[in-house]
């Protein structure tokens, strides 16, 4: 089955085509551009380029997989609204996967691993994996707070651009790769659903933070 995978939860704007069969996932043409400020400009052209290189039309796709974050909202929404609209227009199912899985399940080494991406505001989005399987829920915290929890979680290594950025504070060795969610790994996380023709899912972003809002205060007097 032909799958399009997109992820915009990090500065890496990712679009790739993959072939999914009972035997496994084969990654086809991919377009990955690292730019934290241009998700909206980059994603659709990247999808178009990947499809063209794979010599398939959008209508040839069987399903769409999207990383639902966590990630900085504005960029994250670009990927999710794009995947949703494509799925709707093409009449194919959409499947959401946690973007951190694209790091945590891709970092190959036994034992417990912290996957972390940059959440801005001096925080990281993080999740812990054991042999590639998640053992905590995705969360957002300051690196020092995450570092405090690592010993009791039995984590000895980390990966992801958030971990690289705060490696010193985290106090565990950080792998150079993967820095960003790996496309083939994201598809693998949805493999069972794809092959079993599971119903399409709404792509709900993992925001993890409430929107910043200021409730209006009391009226300020204008008379002195």
């Amino acid at each position, binding site marked *: 089955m032909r799958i399009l995978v997109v992820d915009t939860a990090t500065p890496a704007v990712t679009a790739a085509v993959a072939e999914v069969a009972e035997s496994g996932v084969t990654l086809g043409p991919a377009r990955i551009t690292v730019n934290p400020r241009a998700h*909206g400009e980059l994603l659709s052209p990247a999808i178009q380029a990947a499809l063209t290189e794979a010599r398939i039309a959008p209508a040839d796709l069987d399903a769409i997989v999207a990383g639902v974050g966590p990630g900085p909202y504005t960029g994250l929404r670009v990927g999710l609204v*794009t995947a949703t609209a494509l799925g709707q227009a093409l009449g194919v199912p959409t499947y959401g996967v946690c973007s951190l899985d694209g790091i945590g399940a891709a970092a190959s080494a036994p034992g417990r691993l912290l996957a972390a991406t940059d959440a801005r505001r001096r925080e990281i989005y993080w999740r812990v994996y054991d042999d590639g399987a998640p053992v905590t829920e995705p969360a957002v915290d300051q690196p020092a707070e995450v570092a405090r929890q690592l010993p009791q979680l039995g984590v000895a290594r980390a990966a992801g651009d958030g971990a690289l950025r705060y490696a010193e504070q985290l106090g565990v060795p950080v792998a150079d790769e993967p820095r960003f969610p790996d496309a083939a790994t994201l598809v693998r996380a949805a493999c069972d659903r794809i092959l079993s023709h599971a119903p399409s899912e709404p792509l709900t972003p993992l925001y993890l933070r409430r929107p910043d809002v200021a*409730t209006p205060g009391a009226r300020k007097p204008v008379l002195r």
Partner: protein
Amino acid sequence: MNDQALVLGIETSCDETGIGVVRGSELLADAIASSVDAHSRYGGVVPEVASRAHLEAMAPTVRRALDTAGVALKEIDAIAVTAGPGLAGALLVGVAAAKAYALAADKPLYGVNHLAAHVAVDRLEHGPLPEPALALLVSGGHSSLLLIDDLARGVRPLGATIDDAAGEAFDKVARLLGLPFPGGPPIDREARAGDPGAINFPRGLTSPRDLARHRFDFSFSGLKTAVARWVEARERAGEPVPVADVAASFQEAVCDVLVRKALDACSEHGVDTLLIGGGVAANSRLRSMAEQRCAKAGVRLRAPRPKLCTDNGAMVAALGAHLVEAGVSASTLEIPADSALPVTTVSLHAGL
């Protein structure tokens, strides 16, 4: 066989997810999902709340619009989307969605200017706009006087607000009077029972000295403060605030300045058609005052019905249809959402 362009329009510049479908000048669907209730307790639109709502509403609202129009996405000839101006994060949801629909259906994409779309929407009701025309666009986000020589290729800004937008003044005065957000409809309602001449509130930028520099500009910040002072003085004196009279007098001051300057611009530029648009153009007093004064000045007034004055997707689709007819080239999938898109840019092309 119908050779008029069938266009899907997407609008997400503020708090309304608007999806419209038009065929040429015919309105087929105007679906709206509004997040206004989520903003009301904050007394204004919260950008992140609006963006989140747009993402949730996009696909269902597109579905609803297509169903209402009775067309399939593959029958659509072009996709138009508001590329700016507006709230950056909100615009981005619409632009990204429009690109995906255009990519999936292999249709041309038009990234268009929100203000030009407010002008174009009138073709759905009154047919093609005679050019040149003058447009008065007033809402919570914009207050502009535009000279429309050629809606497909360029509009000329004559003036704009130098502080608050007119709609913002309605919101702030409503809050002052204990009326809900958004302030336009409740003030309009209260004002019906009030005396518009009860209080003589100031008309911003209308003194001879101001006119020399700001003939076609607006200012509503001083008016808002004047209303606040007046209300506060009453409260301090322990007297009840005559809400209806304050609402009517405030509304009269806003409408007076808007219509006066719009008609002055018409006469200065020898234009005999005035179009009004934007959320404030749904105000009943602005409509009746514009009607009376235009008739007196020999100017034809074009006022789309209130539902088409407020932000919607049909206006974006209407502008898209106009651009297709005018042979304007489509946008590329690379276009940005531009929160500060200048009004002189009607649509985005490659290389822009």
